[in-house]
């Protein structure tokens, strides 16, 4: 892995970390009114994949989608603006935190009903196959998602049609508040099910950006070459609550601390320094990101809230919502 890639990974990790923290601060300031689901602790999955993707590849993610949307290059002000219900939001406040989308950057939507986007991601991959492009579709979801019907249908279809899609399970150990192991028949909710679709079992350390990136490159390369889908399970942990309102009290004592020792941003920084990359270069990135997030925050705050005139817009392609003549 070359230096540029490593720095790109680090930058992405830091961007997500700082932006997610900012989102939380803004919630505490009552500037983010709705819910929000942060990826603190899970940054390496988003960064590792996004850096391995081509500009015209597709990302599909869940309500826990700030990280993935940002990692594909969506503007910070658009993300924060959306959380705050502002005109400058990626969707002008109509979608909210759970539905971040930036088609321009290949971020094809954040989906808030568990499992729904897996078939959709398969469909985008099918489209690439039919159109004869070599685009790849990457679909992120949680451990809890592996127990819903749509998971099964999407995996089977993708395998049968050999679709260029990577299904990435971010196993952060919990659904909302219930530990995944209490409601799942196998120990590794995604990896142990690859067998059901004739796929290879891929279980990786989701807190190691290099490991994720390498896996991403392999799976994406295979998909692009017509080798069909992959199912990846990345082990990780969300170090904040499920959503903004959750203090995470259901966690056994010590669990969070253990995982904080494996903080993906810290780990990666230590590794880069250990490899001889100058602290300065890293600090430049950190400062630049802080600045960018600050600027985006100010810009979003300065932006007016979305006006009621958009309520009846954009149901249809003609821009309106009329259902009669």
């Amino acid at each position, binding site marked *: 892995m070359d230096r540029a890639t490593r720095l790109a990974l680090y930058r992405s990790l830091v961007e997500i970390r700082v932006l997610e923290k900012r989102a939380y601060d803004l919630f505490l300031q009552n500037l983010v009114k709705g819910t929000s689901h942060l990826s603190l602790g899970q940054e390496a999955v988003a960064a590792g994949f996004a850096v391995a993707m081509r500009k015209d590849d*597709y990302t599909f993610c869940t309500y826990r989608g700030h990280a993935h949307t940002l990692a594909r290059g969506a503007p910070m002000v658009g993300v924060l603006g959306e959380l705050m219900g502002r005109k400058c939001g990626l969707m002008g406040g109509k979608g909210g935190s759970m539905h971040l*989308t930036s*088609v321009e950057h290949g971020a094809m939507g954040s989906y808030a009903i568990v499992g729904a986007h897996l078939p959709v991601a398969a469909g985008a991959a*099918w*489209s690439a196959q039919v159109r004869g492009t070599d685009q790849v579709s990457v679909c992120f979801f949680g451990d809890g998602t592996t127990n819903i019907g749509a998971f099964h*249908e999407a995996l*089977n279809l993708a395998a049968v049609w050999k679709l260029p899609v990577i299904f990435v399970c971010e196993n952060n150990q919990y659904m909302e508040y219930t530990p995944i192991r209490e409601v799942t028949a196998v120990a590794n909710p995604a990896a142990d099910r690859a067998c059901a679709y004739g796929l290879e079992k891929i279980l990786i350390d989701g807190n190691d950006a290099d490991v994720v990136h390498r896996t991403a490159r392999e799976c994406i390369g295979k998909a692009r070459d017509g080798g069909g889908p992959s199912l990846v399970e990345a082990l990780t942990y969300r170090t904040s609550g499920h959503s903004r309102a959750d203090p995470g009290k259901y966690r056994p004592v010590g669990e969070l601390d253990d995982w904080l020792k494996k903080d993906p941003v810290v780990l990666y920084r230590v590794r880069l320094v250990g490899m001889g990359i100058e602290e300065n270069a890293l600090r430049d990135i950190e400062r630049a990101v802080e600045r960018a997030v600050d600027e985006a925050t100010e810009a979003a705050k300065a932006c007016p809230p979305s006006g009621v005139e958009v309520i009846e817009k954009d149901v249809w392609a003609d821009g309106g919502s009329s259902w*009669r*003549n």
Partner: protein
Amino acid sequence: MAELTYRDAVAAGIAQEMARDESVVFLGEDIGAAGGVFKTTLGLLERFGPRRVRDTPISEQAIIGAAMGAAMTGLRPIAEIMFSDFFAVCWDMIANEIAKTRYMTAGQIALPLVIRTANGYGSRFGAQHSQSVENWAMAIPGLKVVAPSTPLDVKGLLAAAVRDPDPVIFFEHKGLYSTKGEVPDGEIVDRLGTAKVVRQGEDVTIVALAAMVPKSLQAAERLAAEDGISATVVDVRSLVPLDTKTIFEEVRKTGRLYTVEENPRLCGWGAEIASLVAEECFYDLDGPIVRITTPHVPLPAADLLEDNAVPTVDRIVETVRRNAG
């Protein structure tokens, strides 16, 4: 000019559009090699090949999800759901994902797709294979909803649906598949959102949909012959957009409105039309608005029971006779 069955008009409509536009693809269960369980899609696989015509597993969520993913990335899919009752197994994909995505993304994602399905009573299949669920779709903002009653309308409205930039739910009526009608040669493209006055009368206005249109016409003939009651019959054709103009005009002329609905009573499409008329044509009404529907029960299987559960010609005649007095 050729005489086509309603069934053949489906394949004709799909073929017309697939021949015209390379981006039109078609997927569903048993639609390819088998030509559809209702034989509505015979010959399409042979003509357009397996790249564009795909048999799927029994995975309705994957079918609709695949159509959605394909539609947002450059294709114009037509998905078949074998029976409209099965909308229930993929309702999230239809009602929560497809219907809402353009709106939530403030227009970033377009979903030009058609979901075709066999709807309605008449095959003695019982309660899980005979429903009329046009109102399920009508209730969801973001879906256009069409239900033709003749071969000509099938072909023309199907073409219009495929060309429409928004998601269209296309209800074919199982009980009409073997009916015949003239269909001019050459390209046919109709317009969504337009009702048709299929009989002009003076005393009462009957609005009907799909299989209830021929029944209403028969009832109108009997009312004319037996009671001297002259009935207008409007074939609604398109529930969303709804041609309120034509409906209101015809109601205003006669001062009396009857709806004939195959759906069970509560929240049927006729309730919506009745409420619109009761609001906007109130002062033009000469008497109560009367809805003739299937009682609010699931459909029974036995032929005698099924035929008498849905509105019969007799019931339409008697209801109008009793009320129009």
